[in-house]
């Protein structure tokens, strides 16, 4: 290691250079959490664009009644693969694998995660799962057509590549589990001296809660998917009504994971927002402890509501009632967070930089998503809304408007730190307009279509829904333009961006005390923490 020059510029190379280790092999064999974060960044966003493309094609199909550009079987495969890619390869791994990997150690004052080699293994598993999923698109019997939920008994009977796709999801689940194990252990063991639990910043807190959900919920989907494969190959009968099996048990097992999974998706995004808002309001976060406890409450309560996906499947009355009640309750901790973020703005000195703009947008879109979710939790409404476009609108508001925009905000915030380059802020703001207009044009319309009765996963639509579909499709075009602007801005910045300083935003958490980009070991000396994380006083002792 090079010696440290007095007063500022360090002779230590950044992790991107790492003393000349820049070849491809040095990246794909690296156990440096920052490099692994970037490996995930590249793979995840490649898959994201595949998912976006499929979505755009689906919307093109719905531009006219009757066939437009594809056959019904293709459409079924499209919405299945769109879901599988977006959920298992973008929204679930997204923030933890990219930004959690990059920033968790730095935010808690550590040099790396607890198990760096396991971390790299997680990425290999991610790649393996993604490759298997892509193969399932093309191999033998064609891409799965069951929907990403793989409901029995159809998933047991259809001739398409269900086993391969489901095995891909199994492998991806294993990747997620290992990340969860790594992060939970890291947070327990590697916090810097003086960083008590209640002095830890909120993004690590969100990753802690998420890690527990990854550990305790994911294995349920693992066994469920394994059983689908066993059913298809050996006919053991557990989900097959022809053999006395109960398809509802499949749904239970599936959703016992997949509902907590949505909290894996949203908690880290909320954590990132909790980092961004104080920085651009130049105020400490309002209600730090409330946000901490609400994160834990969301993880816990969120594991108890799964059957709200099954209200119309034929469960007993008692189950319907209990799960509906719990669903209403789980909205409360999320609402507490929204309240705290907004309260942080009060009497703050607001800087509407790109990360802040997108963070505020997150709050707005997430509220719509969350509230439509509560509506669906009402049993009577659910009968009318289940399996309609209302559901599709709802989950895109939370997963895309929520996690997606949260991810964009977090990237806009942390990009200069990660790469040492600043993107064009005007383009980032300009991109917001088509993004916002397109997003709402696409998904708010879906909410309306759903209430009107348009069913989801239908290849075609009746005349009364036609106008809505056209508006939605045009919305998808605006949205795509916005995404292209946002992403090309980042890519351009990588090559031509202005050099970014260590602390371009005036943040007060640990990542802003290291160079942009950080050196391989993050800190020359592990810092000692003297106080809470969001102190915006003139003098901060570290």
């Amino acid at each position: 290691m090079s010696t440290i020059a007095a007063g500022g510029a360090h002779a230590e190379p950044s992790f991107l250079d790492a003393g000349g280790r820049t070849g491809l092999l040095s990246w794909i064999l690296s156990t440096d959490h920052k490099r692994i974060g970037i490996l995930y960044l590249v793979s995840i966003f490649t898959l994201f664009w595949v998912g976006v493309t499929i979505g755009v094609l689906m919307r093109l199909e719905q531009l006219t009644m009757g066939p437009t550009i594809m056959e019904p079987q293709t459409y079924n495969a499209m919405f299945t693969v769109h879901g599988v890619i977006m959920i298992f390869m973008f929204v679930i791994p997204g923030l933890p694998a990219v930004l959690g990997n990059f920033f968790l150690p730095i935010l808690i004052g550590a040099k790396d995660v607890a198990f760096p080699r396991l971390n790299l293994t997680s990425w290999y598993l991610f790649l393996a799962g993604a490759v298997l999923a892509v193969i399932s698109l093309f191999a033998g019997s064609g891409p799965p057509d069951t929907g990403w939920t793989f409901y029995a008994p159809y998933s047991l009977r259809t001739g398409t590549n269900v086993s391969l796709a489901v095995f891909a999801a199994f492998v991806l689940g294993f990747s997620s589990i290992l990340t969860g194990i790594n992060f939970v252990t890291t947070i327990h063991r590697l916090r810097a001296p003086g960083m008590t639990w209640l002095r830890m910043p909120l993004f690590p807190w969100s990753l802690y809660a998420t890690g527990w959900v990854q550990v305790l919920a994911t294995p349920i989907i693992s066994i469920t998917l394994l059983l689908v494969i066993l059913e298809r190959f050996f006919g053991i009968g557990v989900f097959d009504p022809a053999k006395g099996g109960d398809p509802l048990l499949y749904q239970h097992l599936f959703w016992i994971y997949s509902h907590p999974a949505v909290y894996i998706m949203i908690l880290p995004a909320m954590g990132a927002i909790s980092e961004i808002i104080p920085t651009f309001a130049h105020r400490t976060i309002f209600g730090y402890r409330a946000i901490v406890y609400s994160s834990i409450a969301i993880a816990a309560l969120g594991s108890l509501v799964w059957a709200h996906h099954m209200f119309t499947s034929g469960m007993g009355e008692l189950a319907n009632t209990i799960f509906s009640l719990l669903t209403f309750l789980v909205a409360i901790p999320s609402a507490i967070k929204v309240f705290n973020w907004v309260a942080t703005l009060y009497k703050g000195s607001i800087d509407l930089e790109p990360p802040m703009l997108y963070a505020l947008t997150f709050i707005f879109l997430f509220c719509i998503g969350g509230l439509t979710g509560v509506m669906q939790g009402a049993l009577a409404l659910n009968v009318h809304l289940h399996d309609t476009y209302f559901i599709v609108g709802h989950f895109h508001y939370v997963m895309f408007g929520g996690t997606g925009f949260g991810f964009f905000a977090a990237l806009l915030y942390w990009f200069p730190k990660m790469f040492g380059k600043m993107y064009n802020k005007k383009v980032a703001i300009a991109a917001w307009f088509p993004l916002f207009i397109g997003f709402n044009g696409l998904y708010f319309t879906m909410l309306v279509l759903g209430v009107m009765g348009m069913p989801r996963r239908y290849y075609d639509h009746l005349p009364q829904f036609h106008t809505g579909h056209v508006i939605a499709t045009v919305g998808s075009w605006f949205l795509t333009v916005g995404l292209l602007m946002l992403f090309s801005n980042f890519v351009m910045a990588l090559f031509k961006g202005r050099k970014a300083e260590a602390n371009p935003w005036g943040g007060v958490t640990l990542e802003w005390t290291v160079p942009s980009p950080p050196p391989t070991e993050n800190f020359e000396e592990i810092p000692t923490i003297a106080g809470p994380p969001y102190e915006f006083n003139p003098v901060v002792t570290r």
Partner: protein
Amino acid sequence: MQEEHAHVVPYATFVKVWACLLMLTFILVVVSRMFHEALSVWAMLTITPLKAGLVFYYFMHLKYEGPLLKAMVFVALATLVVFIGMLFFDISSR
């Protein structure tokens, strides 16, 4: 090395636990095969978790671990129990 401070469990303790486990297994089998079904279900519901508990506590060293690890194990087991329990809200009412 931190491992030098780890608690060393005497051989005799493990042998005694093993003997208990074998005995509990014997009781369980006898009760299941000789007695009324209700009694055998009760035996299973008490003896089996007890055996598992002995393995966790002694063989897996949980007795000698700190409160953190004990709390984590509790959370994991409680999660499974809650999943099963809540599932029965549905199964029992249809």
